[in-house]
């Protein structure tokens, strides 16, 4: 099939001369029972009778109904009808092999128990999900790395889970969701940053989760299209919080990676904080470095969903403002807003920058 369009040939994009690292792959359990081996009898009972209790009303599914089943690519179900990214072999064939992914970072989303209303259950689930990543995924495919899923609403339990995984090179980062019940910079979450910094693990913040608060600061919106848009605003508040609470001042070696949060908004947020800082210094004297400088040094972003401005140079502006060494390729496989590495990272980006985005930046950040 390479006759009609060479770009569609399977394989690593030619510009990925420093390898292809995908920082956002979402493994999904075939069924909730896959976690049973690592749960106590009490927690197993809770999982199968009361289920996951996120901070919203529906037992099954999300409050804003997705645009397609499981928010997934329609071609990601296995030939046997298995749910997307539930089978390591099919995932390898459809994604890792097909695109020549050298290293893939696993970010398990729900059902992971993150953000559950019940903290002990969330902690038990996080532990089980981490063991499951190792046994079902990393052990079967050497290209994959796990994330330390933490019960982030209980920061002490999160720190304990991080310390348990510290030094295990099968884990490459700590994973939290963007919609926490307090803005992420709140001191309530500092034990997570402390443990991550100590373990030398970046903290990956993946868009999603349910804070329990309205999805906008003006109330609950009506539509899924708004929910998608509001992930960006939630992540903006999160960045504001990390900076203004002084997280980057207190944890100078902390690295934060925004995953699937979008990135077009980041320059404006940094500029706004820089503008505010001089007029609010009396309130936040603990901020000693310019906000934009903090973000430039300690924050990374992933590409997906890639920004699609009307003109190419606008994307170049935006990526340049963030920093070409701070942008990481992500596919979001198997979700519907998946980005194909060959077409989502446009060829008008200079080749050296593309190589960094595809692999070089992630290698340096994660030490791959």
């Amino acid at each position: 099939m390479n006759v009609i369009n060479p770009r569609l040939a399977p394989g690593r994009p030619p510009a990925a001369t420093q390898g292809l690292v995908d920082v956002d792959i979402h493994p999904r359990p075939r069924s909730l029972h896959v976690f049973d081996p690592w749960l106590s009898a009490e927690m197993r009972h809770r999982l199968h009778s009361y289920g996951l209790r996120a901070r919203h009303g529906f037992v099954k599914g999300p409050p804003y109904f997705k645009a397609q089943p499981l928010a997934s690519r329609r071609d990601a179900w296995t030939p046997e009808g298995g749910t997307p990214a539930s089978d390591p072999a099919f995932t390898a064939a459809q994604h890792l092999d097909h695109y020549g992914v050298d290293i893939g970072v696993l970010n398990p989303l729900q059902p992971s128990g993150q953000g559950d209303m019940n903290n002990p259950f969330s902690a038990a689930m996080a532990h089980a999900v981490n063991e499951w990543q190792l046994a079902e995924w990393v052990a079967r495919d050497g290209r994959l790395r796990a994330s330390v899923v933490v019960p982030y609403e209980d920061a002490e339990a999160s720190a304990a889970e991080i310390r348990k995984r510290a030094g295990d090179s099968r884990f490459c980062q700590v994973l939290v969701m963007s919609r926490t019940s307090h803005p992420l910079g709140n001191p309530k979450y500092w034990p997570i940053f402390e443990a991550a910094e100590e373990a030398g693990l970046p903290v990956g913040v993946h868009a999603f989760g349910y804070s329990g608060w309205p999805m906008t600061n003006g109330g609950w919106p009506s539509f899924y299209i708004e929910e998608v848009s509001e992930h960006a605003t939630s992540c903006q508040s999160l960045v504001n919080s990390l900076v203004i609470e002084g997280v980057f001042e207190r944890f100078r070696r902390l690295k934060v990676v925004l995953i699937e949060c979008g990135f077009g908004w980041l320059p404006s947020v940094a500029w706004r904080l820089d503008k505010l800082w001089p007029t609010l210094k009396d309130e936040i004297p603990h901020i000693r470095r310019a906000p934009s400088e903090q973000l430039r040094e300690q924050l990374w972003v992933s590409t997906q969903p890639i920004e699609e401005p009307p003109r190419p140079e606008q994307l170049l502006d935006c990526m340049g403002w963030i920093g070409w060494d701070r942008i990481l390729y992500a596919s979001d496989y198997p979700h519907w807003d998946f980005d194909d590495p060959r077409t989502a990272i446009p060829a008008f980006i200079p080749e050296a920058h593309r190589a960094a985005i595809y692999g070089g930046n992630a290698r340096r950040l994660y030490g791959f």
Partner: protein
Amino acid sequence: MSLHPALPPGTVDVDLHPMVPGLDALAPFLPDFWRDQIAQRGLDGFETQSFPPGAPKTVRADWRPADGTKPASTPELLRAQVLEPWGVARGILTPLYGVQLVFNEDMAAAFTTALNDWTRAAFLDHDPRLAASIILPMFNPEHAVEEIERLAPDPRFVQAMVLVMGETPLGRRHNWPVFKALVRHGLPLAIHAGSAFRNPTTSLGWPSWYAEDYAANQQGFQSTLASLITEGVFVKFPELRVVLLESGVSWLPAFLWRLSKTWKGVRFEVPWLERSPIETVRENVRLSLTPFDAPDDGATVGRLLDHLGSDEMLLWSSDWPHWQFDGPPRLPAGVDAALARKICVDNPLACYARLGQEVTP
């Protein structure tokens, strides 16, 4: 071309904030029952957390009167601090007294009416250069419509104003009678920074610092615009003009990229949207210039203006008496004299038809 062009002759300042000295100032404009409630219930003023009166950010240091008078509370202060020294030709007043925070809808309506009457009596009647916003009691859209009908006949009211963070997203259909009334009278809808405190100021809950609260307005503007667009307000009311005040500017392009991209895939959910949100916003939305959240370098500003894709969207504002800059106002580096004239004069006059109709400066 100067690096920072000065204000051209005829400049309109679209975002001025007179500060109510206290509830006593509203008393003459209240019905007896509500007037007596001030003393009976010990009401102590409606200043809001969005703009803490003592904070340096809320009032620029050199604009706090030395004699202890309430800042920004008289037309004399406005004349001395803005109109005269900077040669501002016209100004639009938007008081931010917290009448929109009141939960009792009858009380909210009474105090909002009094606030609008105070603005008229204390400021508009004293300087022909001034115009004002009709503050809307949005907690009850019927009350908001009544207030529009009451004040629209006075041409000095050139727009109506709501806070960016309200109780429900602004585009929701229960608010449509308000938009209908605005269109009927040719009044733009101004959306100003600030919260009615019906919801946490972030979608992640209440923040620890005022700095986060202030920063959160930027998210509020995005959410509010997303709501107006996706609910189809501009489809139903194509003539409606929306003016974002104290909103910042540089967030707009990336917000529109994301919304437009998502729309291509989930158009079926909001099938009344026939056009990309980018086009809709360029036609229907205007933004005040201050605070201009961009670096002080002409090249970056030039790129940002390119991202905005229109030189008709920006309207100059001082945001008096909020502390956004020191000394005299400067337009951003990279704005040339022709664009400065559009931002300061042509764009506001095109946006506010009523400014041209009434008193000539």
